């Protein structure tokens, strides 16, 4: 039973802006489906009376005060950018 069809995979690749070869697609398709199949065991559990859990740490209301801390220098910020111009990071045309 395949949950992820070729169309769904293509769509996910488009959302992630990834391009992969046809052979890789076949391989990823098999892997994704076997992972999902493994997780389908969870569908068998009775969870109707269980509260959903959104967070694992059990913490609640962790805040910081509204105080300013130093930022990085522009030089440090731009260090990892492949292309820059006048202090901006330069990317391909976006719309």
């Amino acid at each position, binding site marked *: 039973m395949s949950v992820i069809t070729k169309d769904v995979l293509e769509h996910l690749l488009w959302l992630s802006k990834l391009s992969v070869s046809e052979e890789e697609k076949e391989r990823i398709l098999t892997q994704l489906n076997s992972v999902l199949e493994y997780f389908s065991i969870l569908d068998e559990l009775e969870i109707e009376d269980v509260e959903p859990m959104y967070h694992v740490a059990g913490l609640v209301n*962790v*805040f910081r005060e509204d105080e300013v801390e130093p930022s990085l220098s522009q030089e440090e910020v731009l260090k990892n950018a492949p292309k820059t111009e006048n202090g*901006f990071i*330069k990317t391909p045309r976006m719309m």
Partner: protein
Amino acid sequence: MNENVKIGLEIHVQLNKLKSKMFCGCSTDYHDAPPNTHVCPVCLGLPGSLPTINKKAVEYALKVALALNCEVETRTHFYRKNYFYPDLPKNFQISQYDFPIGSNGYVEIEGDNGAKVVRIKRVHMEEDPGRLVHIGTIDRSRYTLVDYNRSGMALLEIVTEPDMGSPKEARSFLAKLRSILEYLDVFDGDKEGAMRIDANISIEGNERAEVKNISSHKGVEKALQYEIIRQRNILRRGGRIVRETRHFDEERNITISMRLKEEEEDYRYFPEPDLPPFSVVDWVPVIRETIPELPDEKRDRFISQYGISEALAKALTSDHKIADLFEDVASEFEPKLVAGWVADVLKGELNYRGLSLDVFPPSYMKEILKMLVSDEITDRGAVIVIRKVLDEGLTPQEVIEREGLRKAGESELETVVRDVLKNNTKAVEDYRAGKKEALNFLVGQVIRNTKGRADPKLARKMIEEMIENLA
């Protein structure tokens, strides 16, 4: 054609009165700074960095939700909204999804046919993305420049139901919202990019189009006017409206088709694992205490307390700074007089120049009114004082001295009247012959010869008397 137009708005509001960003300590004071100087590992989304929620941002969000008459969620948390776009380098935006902090509220606005209620669907918190600068126009740029100074600013998304029936009503809603947010002291609408608006518009029975990222109230009105015409033309030709996202080109006043909208499931929302949930419903009574008198309540109080008209009260209370100045000055002068000068003259002159009230302290208004009440300057002189103060940054006294605006005294006026009568014998004769308009002409001459410093009433009286005596 009179089909129903339905407009809903999605407004992004920066909580720019905060000192620091939503999830990190970077300063919010970046407007005049060079690009990429107000960023840190958290708002750049560098691996291993951890966000922490700004407590005051949550307080502000709660304050807004309550002021918009929303229900407050008892327990809420943040989500990751995943999308791949360089305005957020993490490839997701920390936002809310189900359980927004506020929902089911309403705002009363001035509609096309009297008061109208616009329902608020939800108010939620999220982080602002960075700013993209497209080199050339958006549909024709060669490359894009990114500045992350704005990235991580605390943002509220306020979503209305499609309750507005015209572009004018949409604008009226936005003005009211801005006014409320400024009263709450969580928002400064004068800062660039402080409020950005997406507008949904449909003609009843058809699909809707969404116009994204409009930066001014006037822009919203124009974009919507354009959309109504565009959609009507399609329908008239027997076409069908497609659901799509459009971009408003502020220079050309048109909307351009952008891209097919991503479906909600494409954002693959999941709970933000780096931020624990929070429950702030206990804060409600304390926060409610901090909500000041809002524009509508103030308007009603002004009408009953100062006996001014509804129109004047509305004009005075739409901006809390104007309202405060009015009350300060009205404590020393006749409120009706003050209301007229502040709402009709001062506010008009400020709007005309696109200035905020910060440049005009209450003491200036008091000085001007004092001289006006004691007959030292004329109405016209007072208007000139206000204009010159705004244009040249002078004090009222400086303007009065420099422009010679002090009212002409009786002896000076007498000389001027005598000259005018001597030089306009034709008009004097006309007046004697019963032509009343001739008197207006003579008064006009006196005002002209004193460069506006003559009191028209006094001048009129003097002219009448002098002609009488000459006879």
